[in-house]
């Protein structure tokens, strides 16, 4: 290993993306290692500088909400890509596709006949007590039977292989970073990129548009698409704007839309124009105050009625949150077996449901080893990382779990894999995860790549950008 890798620590308990346990680079990583070693300190600093500056110049920001004001921040991007071989990717992609197929069938089932419940595969209370279950959607079949058109699955790697940590089936974000990372990597690592033969990801927008067109009610080839954003104050606004441009959609807020006679219209400079497909990036609660939250001023009264009449398509469909609920998650492998009559290609992380007395007891007895999550929360909020918490914090958390066991699940603290990052001119391993995006209209489409989140703080396992996480590009190599 070169000097820059001298202090690169390997730990046999943690999968390293670049190195085998004996310190040799894994297949496919040799070229990267060679190049990284050959760069002078100055070149390497320039590469990192170019990556960072490209984000700042482009204004690729996310918004962080402090006590009283919102701040535009730039996500820290590490310039060293993470590599995946074509074979690794193909396995992963097949598993993701299978999983999404099962999840769409599950949604069609729980809002329809509920065979899965009748057959005792999943207890009814797990589904019906889930806050994201929408009784309003019962008996409805969305266009193409597609409930989830856009899915962003969180995948981690351990010594035992890939594991799905979370299915994000409501309004997953981060795909714009995947593309921005790629653009930055291409301009800063030009030769290495060319020589590495990396599979493209920048056609994501075209695939998304294709998927949305397939859902259009009129069946025409050129439906009018709108991307519904909560507005400029939303932390993912950059992405909404970026995608609207990529898929040639109008970027609308609730106040720009209205429903008349069961059709959805947009206020244009020339009057009202009909909308066929809405790629919505707002939560269910804020879609239609006449159906969901009546106190919401963001929504479009009558939208769900227009949707149910088949006059407009929504992606994703309302009610998909029941399928990415943290308790329901535990049953996804069973869904794959039940609906597809196949073994799951991608495994879950072992999960204990605190609603089950024995698993509650196990959780409370092993708090120092487990990660405990609140069922309704996301973004890394409201969770306890047992090994990193103090005894007082654990005791306090245990009280909350005991009071409302149904609201909690626990999982073993995973040894998330690590990948090299450039830290103060040297390479150091940092924990990473992977969020690939899976599209489904009539058929499934996946671009070979992902947003890779990095816990940039040494030792940290939290990759969320709101909590000190960063990102890096993922290179899926050609065969």
């Amino acid at each position, binding site marked *: 290993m070169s000097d820059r890798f001298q202090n690169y620590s390997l730990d046999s308990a943690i999968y390293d993306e670049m190195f085998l346990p004996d310190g040799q680079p894994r297949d496919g990583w040799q070229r990267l290692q060679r190049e990284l070693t050959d760069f002078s300190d100055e070149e390497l600093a320039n590469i990192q500088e170019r990556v960072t500056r490209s984000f*700042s*110049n*482009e*204004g690729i920001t996310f918004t962080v909400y402090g006590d009283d004001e919102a701040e535009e921040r730039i996500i820290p991007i590490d310039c060293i890509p993470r590599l995946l071989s074509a074979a690794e990717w193909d396995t992963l992609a097949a598993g993701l596709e299978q999983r999404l197929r099962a999840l769409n069938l599950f949604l069609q089932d729980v809002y329809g006949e509920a065979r899965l419940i009748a057959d005792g595969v999943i207890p009814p209370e797990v589904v019906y007590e889930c806050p994201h279950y929408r009784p309003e959607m019962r008996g409805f079949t969305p266009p193409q039977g597609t409930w989830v058109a856009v899915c962003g699955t969180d995948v981690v790697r351990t010594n035992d292989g890939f594991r799905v940590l979370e299915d994000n089936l409501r309004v997953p974000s981060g795909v714009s970073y995947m593309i921005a990372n790629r653009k930055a990597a291409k301009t800063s690592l030009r030769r290495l990129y060319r020589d590495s033969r990396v599979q493209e990801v920048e056609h994501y927008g075209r695939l998304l548009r294709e998927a949305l067109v397939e859902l259009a009610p009129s069946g025409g080839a050129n439906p009018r698409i709108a991307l519904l954003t909560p507005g*400029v104050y939303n932390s993912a606004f950059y992405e909404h*704007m*970026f995608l*609207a*441009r990529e898929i040639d959609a*109008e*970027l*609308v*807020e609730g*106040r*720009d839309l*209205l429903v*008349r*006679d069961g*059709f959805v*219209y*947009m*206020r*244009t*400079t*020339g*009057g*009202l124009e*009909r909308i066929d497909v809405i790629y919505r990036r707002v939560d269910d609660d804020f879609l239609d105050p006449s159906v969901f939250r009546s106190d919401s001023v963001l929504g479009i009264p009558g939208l769900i009625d227009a949707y149910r009449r088949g006059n407009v398509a929504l992606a994703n469909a309302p009610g998909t949150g029941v399928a990415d609920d943290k308790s329901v998650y535990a049953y996804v492998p069973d869904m794959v077996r039940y609906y597809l009559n196949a073994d799951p290609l991608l495994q879950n992380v072992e999960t204990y449901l605190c609603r089950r007395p024995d698993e509650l007891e196990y959780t409370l007895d092993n708090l120092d080893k487990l990660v405990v999550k609140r069922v309704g929360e996301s973004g890394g909020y409201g969770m306890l990382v047992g090994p990193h918490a103090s005894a007082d914090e654990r005791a306090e958390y245990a009280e909350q779990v005991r009071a409302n066991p149904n609201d909690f699940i626990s999982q073993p603290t995973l040894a998330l894999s690590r990948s090299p990052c450039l830290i103060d001119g040297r390479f150091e391993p940092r924990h990473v995860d992977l969020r690939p995006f899976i599209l489904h209209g009539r058929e499934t489409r996946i671009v070979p790549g992902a947003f890779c989140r990095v816990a940039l703080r040494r030792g940290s396992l939290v990759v969320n950008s709101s909590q000190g996480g960063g990102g890096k590009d993922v290179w899926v190599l050609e065969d």
Partner: protein
Amino acid sequence: MLARSAQGLYWMGRYLERADHLCRLLRLQTEALVDRPIADIYAGWNRIYASLNRQPPGAGLELLPDGQSTDGAGVLQVMGVPGTAAWQQSGGDDYTLADSFTLADDLTFERSNPDSVWSCFAQGRENARQMRHCISAEMWTSLNLAYLRIQQVSIRDIWNASPESFYATVSADVDTFMGVAAATMYRDEGWRFMRLGRFVERSQLAASLFLAQLELFPTDADASPLDGSESDWIILLRLYHAMAAYNRAYSVAVAPNQVLDLLVTDPLLPDSLCSSVDAAAAELSAIVPGPDRESDDAARRLAGRLSALVHYEWPDAKDHAELLHRVNGYCRQLHNLVTATYFDYHSANLPA
């Protein structure tokens, strides 16, 4: 296009024009600090504040009694010295005097002043950020880079270096942005609304500035202009890049009425008042009728009247200030009608 997007681009055009206009004024004013008599400088600040319809910070401006010379305490007061008290107590009177440093800061970086260069630029950039999908990537990059540069400096930085070159740079940034827009932006309605906003703003700013000029320096024969009157009018010519055009059209001696005539009616001058109102009318006529037909008709008629006012009434008008007041009022009305026609219309009774 989406009404809210059109509105965002319209305002982007307005704000960036306002930032540019103020920068051009401030550039000439900070240049004047170096070599003009103090009375000119005093008049210059008054012109800027009057044209913005804004009060200077604190108790206002006062010409120092010993400020007629270009040496001693007067100069210090005029130049403003960073690091000393921005406000100076004047001989025990109960009002304070603002120095040039303070005034420039108020007009350039003051966040609470909605018309400061910083505020206008930040607003224009914020509109662009929200409407990035409607403008070209090159436009966004050029505007965002300029914004990041302005973000990094304070009045102290520019005052210690060269304030006039800072203002020149910001003006050039706006010019670059508009040039990039001309080179790369799709000529859809977004383009039209951006330019409509820009030209409505420019017309209104010109009318306001000329009005302030006439109030400070009346052109009628009886009223004797302040000292150094010629330079007070030359500065207007420089502001509108019209020095050479003036020399060609008239003589080397600068006559106030001829300056105004040129700046209002010369169709070859790119930002003369007549060029601006004509450009606004042209953009409006290129936009398809809005859903509120009544206000749409009214807007188009008004744009025509505005043109007629400048082209046909101006040459024979006895009272130019009165006419400029009308231009100003028409511009405000036009803005309201455009808003009512295209952006804030009532959709209740519209056909789907």
